């Protein structure tokens, strides 16, 4: 177990280096001039550009720049400063991450609940009306574009019906004092409902489908028959024998999907203007703020690697057959 962890961490470090380096290279392949952002954007003047370029060492060879970046990251856990706003990236990410986390984890809970309910119910009653309706939902969920779903929701529930806010984030722990911004758990929840739904639909559909298939397969397993032969009532069969086994692959999937989900959050954050990582990324990309882009990539990579590690360990914990060696 311990050795396994060590090896996994080493591998994660290697992956991390590769990914950050590739990000670096890709950014330098583009005709970007990060200095410009610092010099007032469109009307940047030569003197300023030169100054900033030298200041950030943007004229140095790429590996030197990478090494500088890497050193700073490892030894100071410092991602540097935004070229556009001058804000420390650590701080920027510290602000954006909770938003994305709210979205992703809240969404994940929602999609797991939906996926479980729909998946299990339709597996228990295959070909019933409910099952068929659920599968139509699943197909639409898989096929409709999240952006579109978002826009439609926004239009319907926000603009037309005025049930929910149509954008923005409310801080869970309360808004800044006398800022007049919405804040607090209830506002947080209220602001996140539409984003969660939008974000969760695709995955809810995918998971409902997968859970349905898993449950159906597990229902056919011999050990389920054994449980029934023991005289266990259906509820018990379902909860203590079927579900746990059927959900094992779901855990693995969760690990693999977190990366995809982080990506998907970009769309939701864009549609609902949530100040999360995805929006930081898009703003960074649009304003050539490489430092921010790199920061988001680094953070996302770490988050994904970490999450996967957790999932692996979790998996070994809930599935006694797996030995981490």
């Amino acid at each position, binding site marked *: 177990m311990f050795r396994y962890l060590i090896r996994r961490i080493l591998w994660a470090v290697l992956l991390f280096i590769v*990914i950050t380096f590739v990000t670096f290279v890709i950014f330098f392949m583009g005709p970007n001039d990060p200095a410009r952002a610092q010099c007032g954007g469109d009307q940047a003047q030569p003197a300023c550009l030169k100054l900033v370029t030298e200041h950030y060492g943007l004229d140095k060879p790429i590996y030197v720049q990478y090494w500088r970046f890497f050193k700073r990251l490892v030894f100071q856990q410092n991602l540097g400063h935004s070229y556009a706003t001058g804000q420390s990236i650590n701080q920027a990410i510290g602000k954006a991450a909770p938003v994305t986390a709210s979205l992703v984890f809240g969404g994940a809970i929602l999609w797991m609940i939906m996926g479980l309910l729909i998946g299990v119910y339709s597996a228990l009653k295959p070909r019933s009306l409910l099952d068929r309706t659920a599968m139509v939902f699943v*197909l*639409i969920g898989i096929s409709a*574009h*999240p952006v579109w779903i978002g826009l439609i929701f926004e*239009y319907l529930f926000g603009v037309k019906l005025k049930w929910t806010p149509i954008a923005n984030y409310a801080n869970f722990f309360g808004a800044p004092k006398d800022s007049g911004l919405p804040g607090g758990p209830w506002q947080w929840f209220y602001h996140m409902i539409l984003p969660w739904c939008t974000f969760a639909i695709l995955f809810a559909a995918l998971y409902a489908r997968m859970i349905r298939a898993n449950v159906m397969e597990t229902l056919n397993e011999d050990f389920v028959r054994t449980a029934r032969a023991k005289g266990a009532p259906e509820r018990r069969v379902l909860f203590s024998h079927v579900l746990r086994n059927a959900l094992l692959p779901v855990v693995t999937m969760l690990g*693999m999907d977190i990366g995809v989900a982080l990506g998907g959050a970009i769309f939701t954050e864009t549609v609902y203007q949530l100040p999360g990582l995805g929006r930081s990324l898009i703003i960074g990309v649009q304003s050539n703020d490489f430092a921010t882009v790199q920061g988001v*990539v680094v953070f996302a990579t770490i988050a994904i690697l970490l999450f996967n590690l957790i999932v692996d360990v979790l998996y070994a914990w809930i599935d006694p057959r797996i030995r981490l060696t």
Partner: protein
Amino acid sequence: MARREQEIVVSTGAGGLGAAVAAETGGALGEVEAIRARGYWELIWRRFRRDKVAIGSGAFIILLILIAFAGAPIAKHYVGHGPNDLFLTAPAVNLAGLPANPWTHVTNEATGKKNVLVLGAANRLGQDEFLRLIYGARISLEVAGLSTLGVMIIGVLLGATAGYFRGWVDTIISRLTEVTMAFPLLIFVISLAATVGPQLDKITLGIFPKGVLTLVVIFSLFGWFYPARIMRAQVLSIREKEYVEAARMIGASNTRIIRSHVLPHLVAPIIVYSTLTVASYVLLEAGLSFLGVGIKFEPSWGNLLSSGPDFYTTRPLLMVWPGLAVLLTTLAFNLLGDGLRDAFDPRASNM
């Protein structure tokens, strides 16, 4: 193992079992009943044919392809202007800067003729929403189709190689797969499309609209790991099948084994997976174009979708059309994929 395969036989349909029984009675008891042997593909076709939804989806896709590649030029000819043509003046764009509503008659500046905007104008340039929708279909299909092709070629080659040869080849390819997998995909694709995109946009090979190949390259580079994993697993399991051993036992060369015993078994998963992949790339293209890092200038569903919010409350239909187009296309590919999977692997349909 035997059991699983056996179940297939049972459910291959009346034809298969009937033939088996007939064959048996014929073989062992002398009489030969003339039942035509059905090929693998024929059986699949028979199963597929029963699936009305999948057939419908297939028909829809064919129709879509026809519309996109043949219908679009015809439509263009018929309405007298192109998808990129501008109608900068009223009534295509009214004084308040709003695009025209469906069925608006406009005058074509170049020809002086009266044209009609069937679904209205798409934006403040007064471009024809209808034409852009059907030309957008072409781009969507091209991006999705070519990316799928790219992804499948890389994925199948690498995956099959890793699975078949194993050893260090497998180790290297598997590590590569894991590295690719660990990339935060969308985040990366967005940065990539924004940075190297503009340079790649120039490459069109003369036939593709600008930006199509950019997306294809980016999608292929980062999407191959999934089919590679599937194919590797497939080949690994096929490789262990006794019929492959049997072929090796009789001295067949690697090429021969791959050609006649491995590849034919990959066709089904490749087809099924490709269909589903096409669907996901239609979505991805629309998403990237929506974010402004995909296709520019040329009509694309994502572009159309992204101008939706500009006219949120005033022209909500502009949001509906491209959304529906994406939904229907993706749905059709997904349904077709499901249908194909059921046809290829009847066990799935028994669920």
